[in-house]
């Protein structure tokens, strides 16, 4: 590889990315999630491609084809369980990767961070579109609820919704276009992931101490190839454990009932990874306000690079910043729980308080760390 890279541009790129890349010696396990997300993306693309070979995007056939494939297509149950649970692990990795970025102020790398947030948005869109494809009850009604949110847009809202649906309700036109876009988006994400890495390698990875690591770097291979391989093993183990032993633990039983426009489920709710945003959406009593809050819950990440800079990068040396950060983690978990509850008391008030606390973090973290900088 070393000799070949002198002549081949591709081999040279690979060499500079994963073999001789100078990497800080002290990056911790939190830095593993980047490569893990790459593994997740590859897994989802591979399993999705295989599933698409036996899938038909038609309202009369989708549900039937997906269920029939369990008994009739060799190992299709494995690919479906891997794809469904792989999505959950993708989001576990995403949220932990973002949490690492927020804690260690990785957002100072503006381009890397911005491309990362775009990747998050596209992955969320892809997950939503993919969940509609089996055409179960939750697929149909989830699609109806979320696409109907666009009707809150002033003036053009109802036209946008009809344009999205391809008709006057969620129906076959919606399913076929969702399949097409769901197939396309992961390749866009893969390209953006390459751009994400490109911008990162321009500056080099940060490290937990928040100081420059230019004087103490090691080559990526073998050190971080092996460390990332261990990370993959510890990540894939639980994933395969779910796939083989509890494939539907994280799923919703309603999605094993064929989608029926005439029967509304008692509790329409998304998969667990969207529940925090769902809780924020439902916390606001106004429809447009709820949609704005939902969008803001994710788009607020774009603000992070513009938050006040601290003397020391990261929150490691800011005790009150740490308290606030871990409070945010708790709020996020509680919002996820609240999103699974019906819209009744006391869950309404709980969701509203938690939603306020969620946004409060982003308002408070900058001033709090600046105060400590001034005091010391």
């Amino acid at each position, binding site marked *: 590889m070393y000799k070949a890279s002198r002549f081949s541009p591709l081999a040279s790129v690979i060499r500079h990315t994963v073999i001789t890349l100078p990497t800080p*010696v002290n990056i911790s396990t939190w830095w593993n999630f980047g490569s893990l997300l790459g593994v997740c993306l590859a897994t989802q693309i591979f399993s999705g491609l295989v599933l698409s070979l036996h899938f038909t995007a038609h309202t009369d056939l989708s549900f*039937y084809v997906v*269920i*029939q494939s*369990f*008994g009739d297509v060799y190992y299709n*149950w*494995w690919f479906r*369980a891997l794809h469904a649970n792989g999505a959950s692990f993708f989001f576990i990795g995403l949220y932990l990767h973002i949490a690492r970025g927020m804690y260690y102020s990785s957002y100072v790398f503006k381009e890397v961070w911005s491309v990362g947030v775009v990747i998050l948005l596209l992955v969320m869109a892809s997950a939503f579109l993919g969940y509609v494809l089996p055409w179960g009850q939750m697929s149909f009604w989830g699609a109806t609820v979320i696409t109907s949110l666009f009707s809150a847009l002033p003036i053009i809202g109802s036209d946008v919704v009809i344009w999205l649906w391809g008709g006057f309700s969620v129906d076959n036109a919606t399913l076929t276009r969702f399949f097409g876009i769901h197939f396309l988006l992961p390749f866009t994400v893969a390209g953006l992931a390459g751009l994400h890495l490109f911008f990162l390698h321009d500056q080099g990875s940060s490290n937990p101490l928040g100081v420059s690591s230019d004087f103490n770097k*090691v080559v990526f291979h*073998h*050190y971080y190839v*092996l*460390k990332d*391989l*261990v990370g993959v*093993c*510890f990540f*894939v*183990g639980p994933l*395969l*454990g779910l*796939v*083989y*032993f509890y*494939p*539907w633990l994280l799923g919703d*039983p*309603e999605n*094993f*009932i064929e989608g029926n426009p005439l029967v509304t489920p*008692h509790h329409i709710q998304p998969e667990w990874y969207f529940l925090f945003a769902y809780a924020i959406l439902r916390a606001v009593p106004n429809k447009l306000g709820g949609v704005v809050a939902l969008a803001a819950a994710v788009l607020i990440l774009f603000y992070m690079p513009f938050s006040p800079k601290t003397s020391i990068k990261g929150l490691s040396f800011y*005790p*009150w910043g740490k308290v606030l950060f871990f409070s945010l983690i708790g709020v996020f978990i509680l919002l996820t729980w609240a999103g699974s509850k019906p819209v009744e008391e006391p869950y309404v008030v709980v969701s509203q308080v938690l939603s306020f606390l969620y946004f409060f973090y982003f308002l408070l973290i900058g001033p709090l760390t600046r105060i400590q900088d001034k005091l010391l």
Partner: protein
Amino acid sequence: MAGWTVGKKVLATALGMGATGGAGLYVALDESVKADLTLHPPKLPWSHKGPIDSFDHASIRRGYQVYKQVCAACHSLKYIPYRHFVDVFMTEDEAKEEAAEIMVRDGPNDIGEMFDRPGKLTDYLPMPFPNSAAAAYANNGAVPPDLSLMVLARHGGEDYLYHLLNGYCDPPEGVELGEGQHFNPYFPGGAIGMAPPLYTDIIEYEDGTPATQSQLAKDVITFLSWTAMPEHDERKKFGMKAMLVLIPFTALCYYKKRQYWSLLKSGKYVYNPKKY
């Protein structure tokens, strides 16, 4: 907080955890005494529930007999063909004989007519009603759902279905039921259109097992677990093989990682100030 002693930090952490735990306990206790119109089914020790437990195939066979003689009058299994029975709970000849008991509309023949023929392995289990309107008309307006995925399509799975089948009782004071409805505390809302379907000795098992109500329920639900998860046994077998490879491989990777890193991890920085 920076100037706190270890003892103070431990105390603050313990107080924080205690407060959080106390709040959680309060919420849990408060929720548990609130009125809930649906009875949650207790967990049962199903023989196939563990990570390395397979189906009881004799129970699947008996369950099919229960389905055929009791449930098939109203409930369809439209995703299950007869060929799936082969080598699961029937031999090929038994499955062919089973399929041949039904008549299937097929055609057109050479002169363009549709005709009825005995069923084959490739045919699906017959529908009790031609369409949902006929099913509703025959069942007091309620359409008996398809049972192929019922174990996966209900919260509580097997436990819910077992307790539903065995849980019929008289309605409590003040609960009004519509005509043709029955009270079942496990069914959401309490009023179910299905009459109690099982009672002891409703059928006679071909293998001589006593057909008590609980045995009938257990067997038919094991059968329905198989219809919902036909890949179940193969999935767990693969899982065991995967773990047999993955766990040692993980240990090996971890060892090699620690080995390569040992030089860096055991490095020291020493500051030797310049002596002037």
